[in-house]
């Protein structure tokens, strides 16, 4: 990724490592990755180096807020990977985010040790409160950071694998899949609310003290978490980009556009769906794991169906099927949320709904498609030009291109 290769034409065969090749044909992604790298360094730097009161100082509050946005952005990338490229509209991705968050939360709980209210070195406070005498088996190992990190990937990954294997092998797609993913996250919401589950019930896991021995209240720890979130987002983006630019990505698009065609070409559609669904769930889990130490709590509310629907709105607003659009959408919508829930809290949900309707009606390609849309409108003489015609034709064709029964048009809500 040297300056030299960046300025060369895209069509030339590219020398250099896989990373260079990955980013060469992806101008927007290149800009995104650079911006994120800069952000990951500059924000912690400004927080730690400049004293409060300096115009260059970034407050810890702002840094944590931005860190949250980065986690949401990673979650949005995960959703765009399956929805934008494979047409799997998951309305339950918040569940994978929450599971990753719980895995991290369990580690942080064990880190508290005997500094809890009840000063029990082994059991978290809520277990002592419930008169439990020993740690449930599924809490074993979470005192080890590495184990918790494995579980951050494994818990969402295994759930996605089992759920996906059942759904995709039975060829459940489209709206039906969306509905059962909602049911999945709702079922988990109810389960995690129960005290007997051993995850802190209604209150969830909180009062964390430190991570890897570093105090979570320290600015430096916060800065490190922010940095880690930025890096995770970059890596998540690159992994997703690698997948969608490979032949596998084109198979995913084939499945999205015409599932039957993909099958009759000899591709086992369910394996592809399963693969990308599991990868996406793991990315969501990582996002959740980075989110929890920054906000300081994880509770069953994260499983709420509305959360998962919000993710879809981020992706739709940003621009479905571009990955970097998902990042932009997540940041934009969440910034708006932060602002408006402060200004007029009770109106926010209506605004969010309105935003989604407007996006669907007027910005089919989201914010990132706005530029192309404007150009088409104003540059092409005589209003809707030939190219816009071909786009709408495409969509019409896609609606009816299946004489084989499996209609794939429902991916687009």
């Amino acid at each position, binding site marked *: 990724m040297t300056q030299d290769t960046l300025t060369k034409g895209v069509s030339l065969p590219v020398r250099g490592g896989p990373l260079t090749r990955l980013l060469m044909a992806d101008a927007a992604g290149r800009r995104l990755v650079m911006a994120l790298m800069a952000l990951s360094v500059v924000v912690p730097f400004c927080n730690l180096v400049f004293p409060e009161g300096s115009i260059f100082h970034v407050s810890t509050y702002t840094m944590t807020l931005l860190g949250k946005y980065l986690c949401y952005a990673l979650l949005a990338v995960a959703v765009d990977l399956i929805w934008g490229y494979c047409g799997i509209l998951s309305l339950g991705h918040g569940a994978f985010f929450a599971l990753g968050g719980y895995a991290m939360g369990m580690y942080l709980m064990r880190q508290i040790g005997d500094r809890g209210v009840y000063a029990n070195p082994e059991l978290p406070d809520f277990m002592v409160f419930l008169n439990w005498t020993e740690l449930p088996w599924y809490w074993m190992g979470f005192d080890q950071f590495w184990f918790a990190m494995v579980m951050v990937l494994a818990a969402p990954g295994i759930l996605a694998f089992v759920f996906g294997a059942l759904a995709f092998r039975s060829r459940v797609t489209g709206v039906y899949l969306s509905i059962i993913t909602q049911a999945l996250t709702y079922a988990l919401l109810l389960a995690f609310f129960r005290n007997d589950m051993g995850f802190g019930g209604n209150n969830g896991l909180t009062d964390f003290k430190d991570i890897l021995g570093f105090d979570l209240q320290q600015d430096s720890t916060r800065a490190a978490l922010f940095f880690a979130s930025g890096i995770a987002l970059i890596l998540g983006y690159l992994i997703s980009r690698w*997948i969608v630019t*490979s*032949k*596998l990505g*084109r*198979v995913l*698009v*084939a499945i999205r*556009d*015409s599932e*039957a*065609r993909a*099958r*009759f*070409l*000899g*591709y*086992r*559609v369910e*394996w*592809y769906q399963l*693969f990308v669904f599991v990868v996406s769930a793991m990315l969501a889990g990582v996002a959740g794991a980075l989110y929890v130490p920054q906000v300081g709590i994880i509770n069953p509310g994260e499983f709420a169906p509305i959360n998962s629907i919000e993710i879809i709105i981020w992706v739709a607003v940003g621009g479905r099927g571009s990955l970097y659009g998902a990042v932009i959408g997540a940041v934009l919508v969440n910034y708006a949320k932060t602002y408006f829930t402060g200004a007029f809290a009770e109106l926010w949900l209506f605004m969010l709904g309105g935003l989604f309707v407007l996006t669907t009606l007027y910005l089919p390609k989201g914010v990132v498609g706005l530029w192309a849309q404007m150009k088409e409108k104003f540059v092409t003489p005589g209003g809707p030009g030939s190219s816009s015609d*071909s786009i709408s*034709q*495409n969509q019409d*064709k*896609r609606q*009816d*291109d*299946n*004489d*084989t029964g499996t209609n794939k048009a429902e991916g687009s809500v």
Partner: protein
Amino acid sequence: MSLAKPKHIEQPTVLYMDGVSVSFDGFKALNSLSLFIEPGEMRAIIGPNGAGKTTMMDVITGKTRPDTGTILFNDEFDLTRYDEAQVANMGVGRKFQKPSVIESLTVFENLEMSLKGGRSVWAALTHKLTAEKRDKIDEIIGMIDLKERLHEEAGSLSHGQKQWLEIGMLLGQEPELLLIDEPAAGMTDEETMKTAELFKQLAKKHSLMVVEHDMDFIEALDCRVTVLNEGSVLAEGSLQNVKNNQHVIDVYLGR
């Protein structure tokens, strides 16, 4: 003209169907259908709407399980036991009635995806475009006449070009048996004749089963014709022979 049921066929067959029946909610879409296709043979299938032509393709390609009957591929594989992807990978290619190419991929990418082999997830992730594959795509692109549109989205092609691209994708799969559903639908006369020429060329290396309504097209194919009606074979023979068959005139041609 009665048709002897080929219970035991001496010569090798690419496709052998015997007594295949499928019913949907009591409606018999296929009613003890029997037919066989020899290696390198081209066969045209005609019949009125609802005769079971598409259902027949569905049972061959693993989309629909027949209630009863045998379907053998290359005298060896019982196709009723496999799903669509497995049947496709054995060497049965299928073209749908409406052109179903991947609209948001380019012509090149469509063809690249169709090339034989590399169907596993891992193979797809690590796929590299070799010179050999490039040559194969070049060869196909020459046959289907889409050289100038190679890097355009398939969605921008005309109807006839999409049909051709889909045929090209079938060729990429290198199937032994091609099942082709109404290829000439929506084509100009000139395109229709070009398609017929192409199929005759293909028949040298592959076996083809072509479902079609266009009688001129079938005449141009100049091959054996099977007439389906109400889920079974009504008549079989040369086009001339079939055209003069009173049953066929009654149920299909005469109307």
